Every structure is written in C-alpha cells, then in structure tokens.
C-alpha cells in the first residue's frame, strides 16, 4: 500500500461531501457535507506532509481546522437565524436571489 491510497480515500470523501451539498436540502446536513470536504483536504495535506517530510502540510491542516471551527460557528448562527425567521432549515426556502 502506498500513500496514494490515502489520497484516493480523501478524494472519495471529498466527492461524497460535494454530492451531499448538491443533494441534501437540510441546511445542517449540507453544512456537514462542507465539513467533510474540509476534512478530506486535511487528509490530503497530512498525507503530502508525510510524503515530503515537511511539517508545513500539517501546520496548514491545523489552520484549516481552526478556520473551519470559526466557519462552523458563524454558519450555524446563520442557520439558526434563518430558522427563527422562516421556520425552516431547508436551503431551498432561502431563494431570495431569484428575482
């Protein structure tokens, strides 16, 4: 087994996360899909760090985690707020962009 397997795993996870974003309507699950994609990239970063023998990749993954945490805080706050005003957590109900 080579390190490529890790990369393949990360790609599969990433694709699953993206598909989740496309298919699920519940905003929270969509958000989880986003988190899954971020984690897949983290796995790639960690794997490449190991491949190149350079810890910068792990540092990068660390930053990604922190940023993801911040993003989750704000994103969930938005979801809660939308739920308060529209009584729905469906991303399809938030279609004000339609003229």
């Amino acid at each position, binding site marked *: 087994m080579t390190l490529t397997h890790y990369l393949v795993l990360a790609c599969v996870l990433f694709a699953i996360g993206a598909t989740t*974003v496309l298919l699920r309507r519940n905003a929270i699950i969509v958000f989880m899909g986003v988190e899954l994609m971020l984690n897949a990239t983290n796995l790639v970063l960690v794997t490449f760090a190991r491949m190149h023998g350079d810890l910068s990749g792990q540092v990068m993954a660390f930053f990604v985690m922190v940023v993801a945490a911040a993003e989750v805080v704000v994103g969930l706050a938005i979801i809660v707020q939308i739920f308060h005003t529209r009584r729905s957590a469906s*991303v399809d109900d*938030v*279609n004000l*962009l*339609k003229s």
Partner: protein
Amino acid sequence: MTSTIATVTAAPLPGAVLPGAVPADGTFTQAWLLIALPLLGAAVLLLAGRRADRWGHWVGVAASAGSFVVGLLLLIGLLGRDAEDRVLDLHLFRWIPTGPLDVDAGLRIDPLSLSFVLLVTFVGTLIHVYSVAYMEHDVDRRRFFAYLNLFVAAMLVLVLADSYLLLFVGWEGVGLASYLLIGFWNQHTPNAVAAKKAFVANRIGDLGLLIALMLMVATFGAVDFDTVLAAAPGAGEGVLTAMGLMLLLAACGKSAQFPLQSWLGDAMAGPTPVSALIHAATMVTAGVYLIVRSGPIFEGAPTAQLVVVIVGAITLLFGAIVGCAKDDIKKALAASTMSQIGYMVLAAGLGPIGYAFAIFHLVTHGFFKAGMFLGAGSVMHGMDDSVDMRRFGGLSRYMKITWLTFAAGWLAIIGFPGLSGYWSKDLIIEAAFTGEGWRPWVFGSAALLGAGLTAFYMSRLFFMTFHGRRRWDDGHGAEQDVAAAPVRHPHEAPLLMVVPMVVLAVGSVALGGLLALGDGFVTWLEPVTGHVEHHEPVLPVWLIIALTMLLVLVGAFLAWRQYAVSTVAVPAPAGSALTRAARRDLHQDAVNDTLLVQPGQYLTRSLVYGDRTVVDGAFTGLGKVLVGAGDAARRVQTGFVRSYASTMTIGLVVLGVVVLATRI
C-alpha cells in the same frame, strides 16, 4: 386657343411678351410698408393680449387703413409713369441663396398687383370698420382683428410677391388666416370641422402649387416671375401643360372651383365680415390672380387653358344651380361667389383676351359681393343671427339702408345696365363667345345661361329677404300664417356697420362704369396682360347684350313672381330632384366622401394596420424575442443555492476534464 395667341400683339418690349420689371425707386421703395403695417398690427394685437382688448380693434383698422394709404400713394406714383415703366420690382433681401437656385424676396409692383392691393386694403379697411361694430359683443374681438390683419398682410404678400415661392408664402398665409377665421368660433364643433375642411381642401390645391414650383425649378431653375414668365414660351408644351394644370389645381383649391369647391359653403361658419372679406372679395380670387399672373405658361399650354375654361364654366353653372336652392342666406351668397369666380376663371382661361376682363370682374365683384355679405351680416344682426331666408321676408320696411345697399349689390351682380356688374360680366360673356369652332358656342352659352341663373337666384335671395310677407313674428304675429314664427325685432345696424355698406354700394353702382370708361382699366392692366386687339365674337355684340338682358329679365321676373308675389313656404318644400341635389351642393360632399375620404380612410386604416402588424410587429417581436430570451435566461437563476452549487461543480468537473484531456 392657338389662334388667340397668334393675335396677341407683342408688348412694347421687343422679344418678350411682357415687359420685364425695372428696379423700384422713390416712393416705391417704401412698398414694403404695405405688408409691414398689417403684419405689425397682427403682432401687436396677438402679443399685447388682454391689455389691448379695449383699443385693439382700432389698431387693426389703422393698420389696414395705413396700408391702403400706402397703396394709394403707390397708385399715384404708378399713374405718373409711362405704361412701359409700370412694372417695378423692389428687392427686399436675399432669401434662399443656395447657389444653383437663388431666391430673393422682393415685391413686384405693377398694375395687376396694385389693383389687388387697393382692392384688398380698401375693402379690407371697410370690413375692419364694419367688424368693429359687428363683433362688439364678442369677447375675442381683439383676436379677430389680429387674424384679419394677418390675413391682409398675407394677401398682400401673395399679390406683391415677385416670385412663385414668395407667392406661396402668402398663399399659405391666407390659408392659415382663413382657417383661423372660419373656425373663429371653434367652441362649436361644426365651425371647427368647417375650418378643417377648408384647410384640407386648400392643402390639395397647395400641393398643386408646390408641384408647379418644383417643375419650375426643374425646368427653368428659377421661381421668380421675370425669369419664369420670360422663359415660358421657350419651354416644351408638355412641361407647360403639367405646370398649368398644377397651377389650376392650386387655383381650384383656393378659389373654390370645381372639383375643390365644397369647402366654400361650409366656410360661411365664420363671422360674416370674414365671409365678406376672405370668402367673397379677396382670398378666393387669388386663384384668378395666379392664372392671370402665370399667363405665359398657360398660353404655351392650350390644353391646360382649355381645362381652365371648362373648370370655370362648370363652376359657373354649378354655383348658380346650388345658389338657386340654398335657403341659408350666407350659403346662397357663397354659391354665388363660386359662380362669379367661375366667370373669372373662364375669362382667365380664354387667354390674354380675357385676363383684363377677369381682373375687372374680380374688382367689381369684390365690391358688390362684399357689400351684399355685409348686408347679409346686417340682416343677421337685426334678426338674431338667423340665416334662414324662409324666416325672413318684408324686411325692406325695417332696415331701409341695408335694403338699399343690398339692392345696389343685387342689381350690380345680375348685370343691370349701367351698374358695375354689367360692365364686367358682359365683357366676359362677349369674350366667351370669341374664338373658333365649337368652343365659343359652348362656353358662350354657359356664360349666358349663368347670367340668367344669376339673375334668378340673386333676385330670389333679395325678394325672399326683403320683400314678400313677413314670415317672422314682430310681437304681434306674422303676416303669413306660419306655425311657430320666431319673434324678431329687426332694426337698422349701427352707423359703423352702415357706412361701409353704403361705401361699397356706391362702389357697386359706380365703379364698373368708372373703370370701363374708355377701356381705362383694361389699358391700365396692359403692362401685365399684354395688349389685345378687339375680336369680333361669333355673334354680334348687340345680340349678345340683348340675349343677356333677356335672360336676366326672365330670371329676375321668375324670382319676383315666385318669391315676392306668391307665398313662400316656410318649411322648404320637397322640391324636384335637382332642387334636392342643389340643396346638398349637388352631392359634392357625398362624391368627395365616396371618392376621396373613404378610400383615404381605407388607405389610412390599411397603413395603420400595416404599421401595427408589420412595423410594430417587427419591433414588438424583437422585444418579445429579447424578453423571451431573458425569461429563458432567468430560469437559470432559480435562487436555489443548490442549483448554484451544481453550476460550480459542473464547471469544476468540465474544467478539470478539459485541462486533463489536453494534457493526456
């Protein structure tokens, strides 16, 4: 008609039919005042607004009178010159300098234009004075005088212009003034409609003048009288015929000649002084002026000349027949005007032999017809603005002066020996009998018949109005047993109205004889019309005169018997088919409606339809396509976040595939 041309003696200047104009000098340089004064009057009256309400009408009178004084001075100046020098040209300014076609604005002062100037300003001034009293109770009297002044100015431009283009300006100006004055009381829809009708009918004529102008520019490269008239004999007959017919069309429109005569009757919707000045004495004669002025063009086109004569003869009889049936005093007079102008056009179409007679009749007609119109206005004034002659009768006892002045006009128009009409109309009848072949017989008979008809319908009008029994109620019942006779209190008009009537009556009586004295007027016009040797008519002159007199007497007698002696039915009797047709202007309106108005409306409708479907359809279609495209594009914007995410994913995948596909 070629024989007529051949007999024209060459005018004094060798090589040209007519003398060319010499530059104006001395008094004549002030001729522009003729136009400037009434124009200034109109401007003052229109711009001063309500402030001028109290004195404005006198400004109008003064402007017209001032213009007349200038005209009189010019007449004295012109009489003091030799006959050859009586055609003057006053250059005013360079008007349209385009290089290939230079048009200068200038005034042509010659016996013809000066005759018109004097007629317009003299009769115009009298009618201004008359209007001061006639329009006294009208709140818009100031505006009325402004329009009258505008008309006088435009008419003077028309007759004084030294080019067809400037003439066209005056031509349109009088059309405008006529329109404004016919529709002066435009708060009543029929008046506004009448004004519109007159305007449209005139536009048709104007189109003819415009085409004639274009032909002149194309043929001669000039539009001034000197150049055009001097070059006319050298042009091809086809061009001259076309030009002549177009000029005739213009004349028909302005002078209410067949087939464009239908507007004149309705034009009586205007105030009576307007009918007197514009639609009897001056503007409607502009067509005659145009034909006489364009003499050389017509002389080169015998066909056009023949058409002119035919049109004149038709209108002459047409107007006379219509006049016999009309019960509206003003419309009867309008029909009479039409008929008399038919005489003038007929004379003008006869060529140089008739030009002077046409103008002669024009001048005398201007006097007696204006006088009669003013008399009709006076009658209306006394009869609460009623115009139905069947409700008149026996007015001679109540309005003596009106009766007398009207009688003068009546006798003048039917050609009572010694009065104005006798001198002028008789000459035309004689001229109509001159020539070769069938023409003198046909046109002479028409003119002769017209004289008889004129005598009948004018006598009918006169007797119905002033004689016979009263068909109205003077407060003690009507003489004649008439149901619902209206109560009237006829009275003589105020002094300001009476004086012009008297002056015009004097003119009606004496002017003809005065001008005919020693062929004075004909000789006076010779610098313009050319000298013509006297021609013997196909019938002896004494016979023509005798026949005319006989017909006139018969006509007058018939009218006297029917309308003065016997009882006039108040509700008009059904009458014969001809009477009914004549009452309806011989169905001219119906014919116009069928031949012109309805096809025009269909054309307009189809054009509108085409515009809506094809042109608008193209544009709205384009718009719809764009809207549809936008609508389709809008569907992409669902507002769903997931759709946008799909777009991103699709783009990402496609981009990745493309990049990899190029690399592998």
